[in-house]
């Protein structure tokens, strides 16, 4: 048995052993705060069991294993619905960047371990109200202030900021050059004076994203990461890091089996729904799409195992899966007719069609909208031209608002 398979089995055993305390069924009905507390305990247990920082170097608290080991563990973990959502971004982007660019190495290592144990959470402060998919249009100002900097402005869509201890941020340090060139990257103490976090309530009713306001927030010189004016490069690097993540052909909604089980109980025109051509077509088309995405993932894994670079087709996963999850969720609700109008706002999106449907639009926008993903595929993979960008090369302070 390969070392990877062996690792996968050990992971499975450990997850099964802690599931009674941490897995989704054990947490039904918990408030976000209570769920987060359980999550922190889970992260600590995971660290002690040697499944934290799997593909990171031991010097900074990792396990020194391969990316494949991490993907394997994540896939096993996803099946249990463990309370890891709060730590995904923290460990996915800010911490790896901190590891690479953090100036005070001892301090960095302390942060990494605390983040792995769930004792501290980091957020990523990129998006701004004016920006949308145009990251380089950001307006938050970083002005030199003594040996350090002074931060003023507003960020938005910051996940879990209300529970975060630290964040990484890109700010405009020079408005007189083209918009990509005037940015610098820092880490920031979320508890520092002048930092205000305001949760944003989303259409589904929850508030895991926030507005974050900065009013003369002081940054020491060693809080800078990367060169002055090099912030856009570091930001892009941040967005590139997490390429080895477990995918979900269900688009982070319910598995197709959940749809089939529902349809078994329903009728279309007083005949079994599963005998209706429209229902059969929806099941078949979704199965074909999902099995294709899964084959793409399995192939990517095999290539990585063989030391090859996986193909770019991996970038299709979210675009294709979430979009079709939205329509399948609508159909699941429509099929139930008057018997399916009851709705629980706290239901789990991977188990409940109402929750899946209501949150699908967020899924199609967050982490790269359909349109941004299509542009990326067209430009980066197919070599099609970039969209017209009138602001290209224009000094930021001369771009009409």
């Amino acid at each position: 048995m390969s070392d990877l398979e062996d690792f996968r089995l050990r992971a499975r055993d450990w997850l099964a052993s802690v599931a009674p305390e941490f897995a989704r069924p054990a947490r039904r009905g918990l408030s976000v705060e209570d769920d987060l507390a359980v999550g922190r305990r889970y992260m600590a247990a995971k660290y002690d069991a040697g499944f934290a920082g799997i593909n990171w170097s031991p010097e900074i608290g990792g396990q020194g294993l391969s990316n494949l080991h991490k993907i394997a563990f994540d896939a096993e973990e996803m099946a249990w619905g463990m309370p890891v959502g709060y730590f995904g971004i923290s460990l996915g982007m800010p911490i790896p960047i901190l590891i690479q660019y953090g100036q005070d190495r001892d301090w960095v290592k302390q942060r990494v371990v605390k983040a792995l144990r769930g004792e501290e959470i980091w957020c990523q402060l990129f998006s701004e109200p004016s920006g949308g998919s145009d990251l380089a249009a950001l307006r938050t100002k970083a002005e030199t202030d003594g040996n350090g900097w002074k931060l003023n402005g507003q960020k938005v869509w910051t996940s879990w900021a209300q529970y975060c201890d630290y964040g990484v941020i890109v700010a405009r340090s020079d408005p007189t050059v083209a918009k990509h060139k005037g940015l610098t990257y820092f880490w920031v103490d979320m508890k520092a004076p002048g930092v205000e976090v305001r949760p944003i309530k989303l259409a589904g009713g929850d508030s895991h994203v926030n507005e974050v306001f900065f009013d003369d927030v002081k940054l020491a010189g060693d809080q800078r990461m990367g060169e002055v004016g090099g912030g856009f490069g570091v930001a892009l690097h941040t967005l590139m890091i997490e390429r080895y993540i477990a995918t979900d052909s269900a688009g982070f909604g319910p598995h197709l089996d959940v749809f089939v089980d529902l349809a078994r109980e329903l009728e279309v025109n007083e005949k079994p729904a599963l005998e209706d051509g429209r229902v059969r077509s929806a099941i078949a088309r979704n199965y074909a799409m999902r099995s294709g995405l899964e084959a793409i993932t399995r192939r990517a894994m095999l290539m990585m195992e063989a030391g090859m670079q996986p193909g770019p087709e991996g970038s299709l996963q979210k675009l294709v899966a979430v979009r079709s999850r939205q329509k399948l969720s609508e159909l699941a609700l429509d099929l139930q007719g008057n018997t399916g109008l009851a709705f629980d706002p706290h239901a789990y999106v991977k188990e409940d069609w109402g929750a899946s449907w209501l949150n699908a639009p967020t899924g199609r926008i967050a982490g790269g909208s359909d349109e941004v993903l299509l542009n990326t595929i067209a430009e980066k993979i197919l070599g099609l031209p970039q969209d017209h960008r009138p602001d290209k090369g224009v000094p930021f302070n001369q771009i009409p608002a």
Partner: protein
Amino acid sequence: MSLLYDEGQQAIATESRKVADARADKARLLALLERGGAYDETFWATAREQGWTALALPEDYGGLGLGLVELGLVAQATGAATAGAPFLTPGYGAAIALLEGDDAELKARWLPGIASGETIAAVAFAEGQSPLPERPTARLTAEGLTGEKPGVTGAAHAHIAVVWALADGEPALVLAEIRDEHRRPIDGFDNSRGLADLAFANAPAQVLVKGKAARAAAHDVLARMAVVTAHEQVGGAEALLHIARDYALTRKAFGQPIGAFQSIKHRIAELYGLVEIARANCIHAASRAHETGSEADFLKAAAAARISATEAYDTAARDTIQVHGGIGVTWETGLHLHMRRARSLAIEQGNLMWWEDLLVRELTGVAA
């Protein structure tokens, strides 16, 4: 009836839109989403004061003697405003059911209250997934009405319900008063719809129409309600179309308005097409129904309106939110009011598949 609105009808369209918009309050509607068993009293008071409840009822019973065309125009206005109470459509449906019966006493007893809005009526036809089952399980016997009707719109607040049931083995439209022990309110994703399961056990009830005529009457009532709903869907879809258009003109990305990107621009143009096709079908369908009774092709026209309006509103909800990006999925922006309403209206009066099958049966004589 003509496909062109006359001046009176245009006045109703403009006035109802003006009033519905002026009295609508997004904050109030958002609050209602999280309050089970409540509805927007301001809207309902407006509907009564404006005579929208009386619009399509005969003058003999305190109605204004107008028809489905006028009620449809009002529904378009209330749909655009995602109105916070669902009673206009079932009220009209219940009134039609009463009018298609021949019990003068019942008409005299209930129609004036429906016209004034004092009486809130529900229409309880559906069982299981069928909006109009071939043989309902609800039964009317000498002991009274017994049976269950799931997820009835407005039933959490209604005083009476028109129920699709079997009376001595024959299909019938039956009128029953709803008492609190009959209803179990439901928390939904669009709470102002006043959803409740109804369960009657030997409840007092009277027959409105019975036998073969009852099936035809039930189809006519459901089709009329579907046409009102289709107008509501067109109103909602058109409102979203304008919201998307305006946002695409003002919001900038990469130095130009996002409306200059064809992925946005063409999507909004496609919405325009869906809205106009649905609107044309609605106008046509409304013109095929009379005060009581309808043209032979009314069911087909109603199905076409229902199908195209459902597609238009669903697509508009999906695409308008997508065009907005992050701001489109916040609670405060409230586009989810339309998204939720689009789903409610897609399910009330029967889902797309049911109407597709009905339409094809009408077109080909072949049942599903």
